[in-house]
């Protein structure tokens, strides 16, 4: 819609992702602005699979801020395989009336402005958002991310724990910190789940002083 009416330059500027400065890495985590994000997709391949929904919630000052949480359904370009639809509980009918990715993406990218991403298995979120940015604006998605799955893997390794299958799943990782069970596979719930897990991990990684962003990203 309005996106297609914009010139290429404006589009590039709009989608230019925020960059992480070196000094930022030494900031205590509770002084950094984060955005926890989760995308639900039709599959695992960003080149062929489609985003169905995006959920995100900011984390700042060491707290999850629900006020600026966001959730968007996305109309997929093709019909969704049945098994996926069941998994996400997203009815095709709801998706058919949702806006296309091109309309949703600017809002999502705007939410990332000045923020560091948080996701559980961030590679997947980064890959899908990058693919989306490239397709729609021709830009890269260059947002620094903290991956809660990687953090958990390191934390377990540091304690000499063997990591079994399923131990790194969001729900398993959360249960290790006494975090409540949320219904999985809802983009906003999962984003919230990752945000809370991040706070728990950061609290654990902190000594007398809060852990720095660099420590949590390394």
């Amino acid at each position, binding site marked *: 819609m309005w996106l297609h009416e914009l010139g290429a330059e404006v589009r590039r500027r709009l989608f230019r992702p925020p960059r992480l400065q070196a000094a930022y890495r030494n900031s205590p985590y509770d002084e950094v602005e984060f955005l926890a994000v989760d995308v639900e997709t039709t599959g695992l391949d960003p080149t062929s699979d489609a985003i169905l929904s995006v959920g995100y919630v900011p984390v700042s000052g060491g707290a999850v801020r629900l*006020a600026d949480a966001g959730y968007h359904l996305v109309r997929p370009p093709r019909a969704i395989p049945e098994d996926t639809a069941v998994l996400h509980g997203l009815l095709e009918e709801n998706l058919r009336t949702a806006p296309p990715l091109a309309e949703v993406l600017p809002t999502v990218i705007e939410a990332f402005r000045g923020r560091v991403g948080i996701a559980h298995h961030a590679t997947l979120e980064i890959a899908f958002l990058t693919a989306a940015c490239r397709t729609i604006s021709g830009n890269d998605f260059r947002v620094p991310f903290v991956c809660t799955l990687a953090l958990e893997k390191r934390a377990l390794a540091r304690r000499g724990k063997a990591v079994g299958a399923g131990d790194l799943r969001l729900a398993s990782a959360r249960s290790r910190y006494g975090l*409540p069970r949320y219904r999985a596979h809802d983009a906003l719930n999962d984003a919230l789940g990752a945000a809370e897990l991040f706070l728990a991990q950061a*609290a654990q990684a902190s000594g007398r002083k809060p852990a720095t962003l660099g420590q949590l990203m390394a």
Partner: protein
Amino acid sequence: MELAEIIAFLAARHPFDLLPREALEALVRKIEIRYVRKGTVIMSPGDVVTMLSVVRSGAVETHDGEGNLLARLGEGEVFGVRALFRGGRAVHRSAAIEDCLLYQIPAPAFERLRRDHAAFAFHFAPLEGGRLKEAQPLDGERSFPLLSMRIADLLRRPPVTVAPETPVREASQRMRDEGVSSLLVSEGGKLVGILTDRDLRNRVLAAGLDPQTAVAAVMTRDPHRIDADRPAFDASMAMSRHNIHHLPVVQGDTLIGCVTTTNLVNAQTVSTVHLAGEMFSRRSVEGLRDVVRQIPGLVFHLVQAGATARGIGLATSTLADAAARRLLQLGEEKLGPPPVPYVWLAAGSQARQEQSAVSDQDNALLLDEAYDEARHGDYFRELAQMVCSGLDTCGYVFCPGEAMAMTTRWRQPLGVWQGYFRRWIEEPDPKALMLSSIFFDLRPVHGSEALFETLRATILERARRSRIFQAYMAKNALTHHPPLGFFRNLVLIRGGEHHHALDLKHNGVVPIVDLARVHALTLGSPAVNTDERLHVARDAGLISADGAADLIEALEYIGHLRILHQARQVRAGKPADNFMQPKDLSGFERAHLKDAFAVVKTMQAALANTYQADKF
């Protein structure tokens, strides 16, 4: 926007369950979520607090400034309310005892919720007190719809009616002659208005109206009315809801009477007097037992009529007195007049007039100095035996601690009793005190009050002067305490019949009673009833006015819950006890009970401080 998980969590918890869906959805958008590691102090006294916190997972402990545990909070429980009510300064210290996830509601959002939703605001309304007091009728209404009695059962007489054109002077003369406080105004048998004492004062006398003014000009037109077939409880609800003291009763279109505010409770008071009267007409223990057996039913009705726990305690104690007095009369008839003066003393809860539906007997016999074991021993042994076993037959079972007049040790002349008390007071030993503290609550029931007065004077004088005794009593008063971890099922009775039950007596009532006793004895006050003792302590400045009011409310609330619980048991044909299962408490009751416990804990801490109880 879907934050269904959080909405569902809050919607299932009190008091958030009182909010409409839209309010919850809007609230969730204001929430901040924090993770707090075990051991972290979340707030200390004096800290600025800007948020109300809800424990989502984990556990938090709240301590007062002196380090006394006030509450242990688990999933779904709220803290920081006091701080927000005191200008955003923390009053207590709250720390995570487990890793916690907290949902935090900013103060302005919390305030808006309280402003917009009365039920929600009511839950938090003055944590300092008010809420406990107000909770009772509400709770009674919810738990005990009065089903057994109809409004028609309450009517004592046909309605006193006048025509609308009757002059007010004539109307008031009619009221005087009939001894009523209101007149129903009818026209062709139909109710058109009501005229009350208050109307005569406010609308006639104060307004300077002519006595010839027609009733129609000053009556309340088309007043609320209620159908005679409705449950009696509806009448009391309607009256409190509309703040009226007189409620006309109709059957269809026909006016058949009028119920007054005090009618309901009075109807029950009448039955208390009636039962006592019945007792004095019985000539055998068995006959007396049949009357005593009606007491649980009476209590049930008193509960339904909305009587206070204190009022019910007074009624049951009065009846216990009557039973003992009747047995003593029968004993004297059989054994002949007593050879020397004596006085039968009620001890413990009966003495305090706080007896509950389940009570064993605590009593003692104080004999005149002229008592001579050899000559009079048999008479009093037999009398005490008759009365104690008679009480046992009636349902006031033998005291397991043998604190009864049939025990030789507790059936002694004045000098011996004075010796007991001298030893208890001047050489206190905690264990002996715990057993004997029952005798620091005494009330004469039958016999020579002067004899009792002599004993009491020595007790009070010695107690008032002995600092060491007071400190021992204070320490003793701290042996029972409220189960602060109750809501996380931590401090419940383990094992046995009452596994995981809350002991409303020892964890709720006893700590308050003990507190009041220490204060009263310190002051040398003759007060025995706990409310009276707390008033005395307040007037003497031993406890603050707020502290006294809080404790009285807490006692009333816990007592109220206990009576409701026992009334339910009686209703279900089970024996009444003091053990409540946590699952039987509504969220509402839990919240109030927790407040009550926090009050007790705070006052116990103050007591420990005052008497340096831990030094002994």
